[in-house]
C-alpha cells in the first residue's frame, strides 16, 4: 500500500530522466559499510576504488541493484522492517519500503532482468514461513507476494528466463532478537520459482545435513552454487559448498580433509567466476576464503581476518573485509586492490549484468 507521500515522490521521480549507472561512474560493485559511527553504501570500481558513497539510515545487510538505472535497494539487517530505495546520483532516498504488517524483510532482494519488478525475501514474523514480496519499480508499490517454498528464505537470485531461485535457510527465528527456534528440526531447501511465482522445482539436503542452513547463492551456467552455514555439532566436518542444476539433485562439494574446519562450518558469501573457473566462499568467522573450481573441487584456502563480501567482476573475484580492504582473489593468493577506513559489511554486490 503506497502512502500518498510516497506515491507523489514516486511520480516526481518518474518525471525526471532516470540516471543510469554510467552517470555515477559505472561502478562494478555496491558495498555497504560502516564509517565512523555512520553507515554508508559505496559504489566501487572493478579495482575496488570508491566512486560514490551514500549515507544509510542504519546498518545495511545487502543491496540489490537495478539493472540499468542508478538505483540501489539497501536492506536492513534481519529481521528487517525497512528497505530504502536510493538514488545513487543524488544520494537521496527515493522510497522507503515497508513490508506488510506481520512480515519482515529477510536480508536480500533481486530485480527482474528488465528492472520493472523487485523481489524481496521475507518471512512471516511469527513462524518464519517464507514469502517473496513483489514490487513494481516505477513507484515501488507492492503488487503481490509468493510462497518462497520454505522457512526462513534468505538470498534469492534471478536465473535466465525470469526464474527465481531461493535459498530457504530453514531457520525459524524469533521476530525480535534473531534467536534460532527450530535448530533440531530445521529443513532448508532450494526452491525454483517460475516468473509468475509457481514452484517449478525444489530440493532438500540429505537428512544428516539438514542442519546445514542454505543461505547464499551465486548464479553459474545451468544453475547455482550455494553456500551453507552449519548449525550442528562444530566437530562434524560438513561441506559449505553445493551446486544445484535444477532438474538434478544438489551436489555437495566438501573441502579437502586438511581444510575440513578451515571455514568453521560457516560460509557468509559466495561468488562464481565462470571465466576464471573459480568459486569463492568466505567465512568471516574463520577469516578465510576457500576456493573451488567450477566442478566443485577445492583448490586453495587463503586467510584474512573478517573477510566477507565476495563478488565476480570484470577482473575476476573480488573480496572485501571489515578492516576496509578490497582484495583480488586468485588461486595463488589475495592481492590488495584498495584500502579505506570503511569497514566493509557482509556482502559485495556485483553490477555485472552481462552474466
Amino acid at each position, binding site marked *: 500500500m503506497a502512502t500518498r507521500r510516497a506515491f507523489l515522490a514516486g511520480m516526481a521521480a518518474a518525471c525526471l530522466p532516470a540516471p543510469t549507472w554510467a552517470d555515477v561512474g559505472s561502478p562494478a560493485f555496491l558495498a555497504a559499510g560502516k564509517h565512523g559511527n555512520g553507515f554508508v553504501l559505496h559504489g566501487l570500481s572493478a579495482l575496488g576504488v570508491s566512486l560514490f558513497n551514500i549515507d544509510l539510515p542504519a546498518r545495511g545487510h545487502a543491496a540489490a541493484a537495478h539493472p540499468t538505472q542508478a538505483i540501489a535497494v539497501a536492506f536492513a539487517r534481519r529481521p528487517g522492517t525497512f528497505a530504502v530505495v536510493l538514488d545513487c546520483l543524488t544520494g537521496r532516498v527515493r522510497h522507503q519500503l515497508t513490508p506488510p504488517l506481520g512480515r519482515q524483510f529477510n536480508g536480500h532482494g533481486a530485480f527482474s532482468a528488465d528492472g520493472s519488478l523487485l523481489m524481496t525475501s521475507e518471512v512471516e514474523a511469527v513462524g518464519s514461513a517464507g514469502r517473496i514480496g513483489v514490487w513494481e519499480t516505477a513507484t515501488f508499490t507492492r503488487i503481490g507476494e509468493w510462497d518462497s517454498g520454505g522457512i526462513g528464505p534468505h538470498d534469492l537470485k534471478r536465473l535466465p528466463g525470469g526464474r527465481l531461485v531461493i535459498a530457504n535457510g530453514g531457520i525459524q527465528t524469533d521476530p525480535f532478537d534473531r534467536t534460532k527456534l527450530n535448530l533440531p528440526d530445521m529443513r532448508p531447501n532450494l526452491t525454483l520459482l517460475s516468473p509468475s511465482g509457481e514452484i517449478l522445482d525444489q530440493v532438500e539436503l540429505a537428512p544428516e545435513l539438514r542442519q546445514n542452513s542454505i543461505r547464499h547463492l551465486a548464479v553459474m551456467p545451468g544453475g547455482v552454487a550455494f553456500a551453507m552455514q552449519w548449525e550442528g555439532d562444530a*566437530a562434524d566436518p560438513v561441506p559449505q559448498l553445493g551446486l544445484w542444476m535444477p532438474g538434478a539433485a544438489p551436489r555437495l562439494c566438501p573441502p579437502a580433509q586438511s581444510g575440513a574446519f578451515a571455514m568453521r562450518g560457516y560460509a557468509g558469501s559466495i561468488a562464481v567466476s565462470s571465466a576464471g573457473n573459480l568459486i569463492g566462499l568466505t567465512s568471516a568467522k574463520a577469516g578465510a576464503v576457500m576456493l573451488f573450481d567450477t566442478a566443485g573441487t577445492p583448490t586453495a584456502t587463503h586467510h584474512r581476518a573478517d*573477510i566477507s563480501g565476495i563478488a565476480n567482476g570484470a577482473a575476476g573475484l573480488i573480496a572485501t573485509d571489515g578492516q576496509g580492504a578490497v582484495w583480488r582473489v586468485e588461486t595463488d593468493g589475495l592481492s590488495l586492490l584498495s584500502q579505506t577506513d570503511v569497514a566493509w559489511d557482509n556482502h559485495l554486490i556485483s553490477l555485472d549484468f552481462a552474466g
Partner: protein
Amino acid sequence: MLKYLLAAPYLAALFMTAPARADFPETVQQHILPGYAKLAATSADLAAAAQKSCDATALQPAFHAAFDAWLGVQHLHFGPVEADGLGLSIQFWPDPKGSGAKAQRSLLLGDPAALLPENFADQSVAARGLAGLERLLYPTKSLPADPCALIRATAHDLARVTDMINTAWIETYANTLLTAGDAGNTVFLTQSEVRQLLFTQVIAGLEFAQDQRLGRPLGSFDAPRPERAESIASGRSLINLQQSLLSLRDMAQTLTPDAPKTMAAFDRALGMMGKLQDPTFANVATIQGRLKTEIVQQSITALRDTALAELGPALGVSIGFNAADGD
C-alpha cells in the same frame, strides 16, 4: 598420573609479574615464538625417544611434555599452523565419529609403506598427532597389530610438522607481524589488525574451553557425555583445560598491562578449576559433579565477557565487524 598432576610447574606462571612493556611485539617475542620453539623441541625429544624404545610406559613422559607444549600454542589459529591443516595434524579433537581410530586401524593392518616418512605426511590428519599417539600409548583395548612402527612414524611426523611451523615463524612469520603497517606488508595493513587478530585468538580460545573442552562432556542435563571429554585415556582432560587457560592468560598479559579485570577473571576461573579434583570430567555424570563443572564453565563464560568488555577496548579493537554479526 597423580605425580604428573601434582608437579604442575606451570602454575608458577600464575604468579609471574607482568612484563614492563606489553603490546603485540611482546606477544610475538615472549609468547608465540617461545611457545612454538618449546613445541618443536619437545616433539623432537618424543621422536628421538620413540626411536630408542617403543615401550608405551617409557614414552609417556615425553608424550606429556609435548602435549604440555602444544597447549602453549594450541589457541593460535593463524599463520603457519593454518597451512595445509597442520594444526589438525598435531591434534585432531574433537573426533565424534572416531575417524582417527578407524584411520589408525587401517595403518596398523595395511601396507607398512604408508608409515615411511615421505608417505605418512599424506595420511589422514585424524590418524596423526597427539590424539593418535595417545591411542597407541594409552590403548583402551588391545591393538590389532604391534604399534611400534606406527608410534615411531607418528612421533616423527609430529616432530616434522612442529619443526616446520617453528621454522616458518622464526624465518618469516614473526617478521610479518612485527612489520605490520609497513609499506610492502600486505598481510597486516596496520598494527591494529595484528592486535585484533591476537585478541580474537584469546576470545576464541576461551570459547573453545567453554564449548568444547567443557561443553562436550557436560552435554545436556538429561544426557551428560563424560565419554566425550578430551584426552581421557592419558588422564589429561582437566590439565588441558588448565594449561590452555594459563597460556591464554599469558598471551593476554603480553598484549596489554591495562586489563586487570581480565587477569582477575582468569585467576578466578583457574581457581575454580583447581578445586575440581576431577581429572577427566567423569563426575559430570553425577548431579554434584555436574554442578561443580558447570560452575567452572560459567567462570569461563564470565571471563570471556570480561575480556570482550575490557581487553578489547584496552587494545583498541573488537571482534570483527562481520565475524560478530553472522548472517
